[in-house]
Each structure stands twice: as structure tokens, then as C-alpha cells.
């Protein structure tokens, strides 16, 4: 599999996505432009999801180009460190954006503190994505002062950011040095899984017609619990990946799981953004959902179980990919 190309394809998404998102978000504060603000928040959430395969494909790309002559190991490590710092701010922005979207439905709209948090995180994330893009570009197209074999010289901004960037190998070692740390990450991952499946399952089954006496609105108010589960699992999942990057990148079940997660993002977009949600939102006890809603609910359930099943099969498919 050609991770080099996949990474080159995906790596523009977080950078352009965050630059455009921050622009729209800032513009939404001139007057009261709710649609613009909503668009920016949706972009942050979508980009946070797409940043996961972007980050992960980087490890595949790293191993693919490591064989090529003239590639500076130091430049690759610097890019990885930049990505490892930026990743968390992108994911935090996505989480804060989802929180802002959730609270915008209440009377009074999204609290100012939530919007301020999104703005701050998004600006930091955009800067760090710029830095990640620059350091990544230097790998293939070294600037004077970054050629292979020479010491890396940083500019003013670069040197400030660099002090916060982790050393990739040390970060990796930190995740796997203690088996109890690893074990507690896995326990957390399973707790997160249960929260997601419980709440998402209950909502989807209601749409499909199970336990119809439940009104949809109150049931859907449990969704933040599933979002807590998702947050826990993105956090523990990415930490586990950083702990054993080559192991996961060379595993077909892992990529299958990621693909299902991306399709779940698409599923959520179809559910919430095409008007299906607005029609099921008012479903009272005993009322039947439209067929389109049932199809979206059923595919969400199938995809979540695909995520669980392929996640559990990761160990079985160890070393199933060559690159």
C-alpha cells in the first residue's frame, strides 16, 4: 500500500481546513452571522476527524521514504514532532466545536466562553498545522539550511514552537514503557466503547422502531455521554498508536477500522445536516420515523460494530501489510 501518496493527498486537509475554518469563524463575529459560525464549527469537527488518518498515514509514508537516498532523518523526526504537537490541538478544537454546536441548540445560544475556547484552540491549531506543513515540505524540498546531513536551523517562530514539540521516539517509549499505563489506556478505550455503543445504539434502535414508546428528544439528550466516550477513545486510541506506530500502520484491520470511522463521520453528516434529524427530533412516544432515517440509523449501527470488530482483530492481522 502506498502510504506516501495517501499522506500527500490527506495532508492538505488539516492545513487548508483550519485556515478556512478560522477565517469563517472570525468573520462570523462581525454582526450575528449564525450560519457562518455553524459552518466554521462543522469544518473544525470534520477536519478533526480527517486529521486522524492524515497523522496515521504519516507513519506509513515515513517508512516508505526512509529507503530513499537523500532523505534527512532529522527532518522527518522534526516533522513528526510537529505533527504530534499539532494533533492534540486539532482534536481539542474539534471537541470544543462539537460542544459549541450542541449548546447552540439551547435557548440563549452557545456561551461566549465556549466560543472563545474554540477560537483560541483553532488559532493555535492553525499555526501548528502551518508549522507541520512547512516541516513536512522540507523533507522532500529542503530549504537552504535544512539539507540532509546538515544541522537544522529554525526561524524565529519555528524555534519557539520547537521547544514545545515532543521528540517522537521518546513519546513512543513513554507510552509503552509501563504495562500498567498501557493497560489503563486499554481499559479506558473499552469504557469509551461501551458509552458510545450504549447511547448511539439506544438512539439508532429507537429510530429503527425498537422501544418506540420512548420520545426521541429526551433520548437524544444522552448524546454528550457518547461524545465523552468518543473523546476518550480518540485520546487513548491515538496515544496507543503513538506507542506502537509501525505495528498499527502495518495492520489491515486497523485501516479497516479507520475507514469505518470516516464513514461514520459521513453518516453523522447525513443525519444531522440533511434535515433527517429535524424530522426525527420531534418524534413522540409511539411515532414512527421515516425510512430514510431508519436507513441512516441502521448504517450507523453496522459501522460502529464494524469499528469494534475490526479493532478486536488488529492483533490477529499483525504484519498483514507490506510497504
Amino acid at each position, binding site marked *: 500500500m502506498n502510504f506516501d501518496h495517501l499522506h500527500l493527498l490527506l495532508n492538505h486537509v488539516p492545513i487548508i481546513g483550519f485556515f478556512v475554518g478560522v477565517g469563517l469563524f472570525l468573520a462570523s463575529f462581525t454582526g450575528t452571522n449564525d450560519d457562518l459560525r455553524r459552518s466554521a464549527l462543522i469544518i473544525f469537527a470534520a477536519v478533526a476527524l480527517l486529521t486522524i488518518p492524515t497523522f496515521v498515514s504519516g507513519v506509513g509514508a515515513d517508512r516508505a521514504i526512509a529507503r530513499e537516498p537523500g532523505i534527512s532523518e532529522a527532518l522527518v523526526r522534526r516533522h513528526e514532532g510537529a505533527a504530534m504537537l499539532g494533533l492534540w490541538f486539532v482534536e481539542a478544537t474539534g471537541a470544543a466545536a462539537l460542544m459549541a454546536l450542541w449548546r447552540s441548540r439551547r435557548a440563549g445560544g452557545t456561551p461566549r466562553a465556549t466560543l472563545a475556547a474554540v477560537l483560541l484552540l483553532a488559532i493555535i491549531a492553525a499555526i501548528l498545522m502551518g508549522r507541520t506543513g512547512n516541516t513536512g515540505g522540507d523533507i522532500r524540498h529542503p530549504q537552504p539550511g535544512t539539507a540532509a546531513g546538515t544541522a537544522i536551523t529554525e526561524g524565529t517562530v519555528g524555534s519557539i514552537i520547537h521547544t514545545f514539540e515532543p521528540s517522537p521516539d521518546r513519546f513512543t517509549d513513554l507510552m509503552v514503557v509501563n*504495562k*500498567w499505563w*498501557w*493497560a489503563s489506556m*486499554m*481499559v479506558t478505550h*473499552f*469504557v469509551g*466503547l*461501551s*458509552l*458510545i*455503543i*450504549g*447511547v448511539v*445504539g*439506544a438512539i439508532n434502535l429507537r429510530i429503527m422502531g*425498537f*422501544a*418506540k*414508546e*420512548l*420520545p426521541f*428528544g*429526551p*433520548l437524544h*439528550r*444522552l448524546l454528550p*455521554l457518547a461524545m465523552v466516550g468518543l473523546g476518550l477513545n480518540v485520546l487513548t486510541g491515538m496515544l496507543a498508536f503513538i506507542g506502537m506506530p509501525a505495528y498499527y500502520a502495518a495492520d489491515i484491520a486497523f485501516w479497516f477500522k479507520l475507514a469505518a470511522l470516516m464513514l461514520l463521520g459521513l453518516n453523522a453528516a447525513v443525519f444531522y445536516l440533511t434535515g433527517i434529524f429535524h424530522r426525527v427530533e420531534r418524534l413522540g*412516544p409511539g411515532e414512527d420515523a421515516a425510512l430514510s432515517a431508519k436507513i441512516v440509523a441502521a448504517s450507523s449501527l453496522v459501522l460502529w*460494530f464494524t469499528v*469494534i*470488530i475490526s479493532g*478486536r*482483530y488488529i*492483533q*490477529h492481522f499483525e504484519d498483514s501489510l507490506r510497504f
Partner: protein
Amino acid sequence: MAAPAFLNTLERSGLSTWIRESESAFAYYFVLVIHNIGLALLVGACGVLGARLLGFVPELPLAPLRRYFRFIWAGFWLNVVSGVFLLIAYPTKALTNPVFYIKLVLIAVGVVVLRRIERQMPHDAAARDASPAVERSLALWMLGLWLGVLTAGRALAYTATYILYGKGT
């Protein structure tokens, strides 16, 4: 400590060897997948039920949540069966580990708590105001116990003294 010889006999049996050593995707990891799905059904449904019982979404009627016990018990029995297969595959690993017995005790108490909650659940929406709600403490016990089962189950992978008969970690 010498492990009982029947563990060795069980481990050498055809079924045990096949689950453990087969390269098939439908051997050991398939059993683990089933165990994981059972966990998701049981703990997931308990999570939603527990959230309601603890008062997260009081406007959600309680009586229809009775139907969630189908998923709870389906998950439970899936995991009894898949758990037995896992035990057949690695009897020494499990039975020489105290964590395994802690897990069994937590499951036993967890089942008792679940059955009590199921008895206290109202049968129809009309009974919602008349009958007293399910005790909150039971909901906390339910969540704590099944979280304990999950943690103990995960810990089995990291606390074993022996993997196979006569073969330490």
C-alpha cells in the same frame, strides 16, 4: 505452586489447541470479538439505564427502558459462552490468576443487582408516578460492578503468572 494436572489435560485437548493455535480468523480472535460484542451490549445498555436512573435525563420515561434488559441478558449469555471458550483455550492462564476469581465474584454480584433493578422497573408508563422509582444506589452498584468486571477482564491480559501449563510469563 503446582498447578492441577487437569489443566494440562484440558490444554492438550483438540478444541483448546485449535482455538489457541489455529491461524483461522474464526478461532481465538473470533471468540474475543464475540466477547467484546457481548461487553458492548451489556455495559452499553447498563450505561444508558444507569444514566437515566441517576437522573441525567429525568424526562425520559423509565418503563420502556425495561426492554433494554433484552440486550443486557443477550450480552451476558454471549459472554458466558464465549468466556467458556476462552477458558478452554487458556485454562491455566485464567485459573492460576486471582484476578479471574475476582472477576467471577463481581459478575455474580452484578447479576444479582441487575435482577433487582429489573424487578423494580415499572411495567407501564402509567405506573411511573404511582410506584417508587428504582433505588439510585442500585444504579451506582450496577455501574461500579460492571466497570469492575470490564477492568478485571482487561487486567487478565496483563496479570497472568502462567500463559500455559508449566510456562510462566
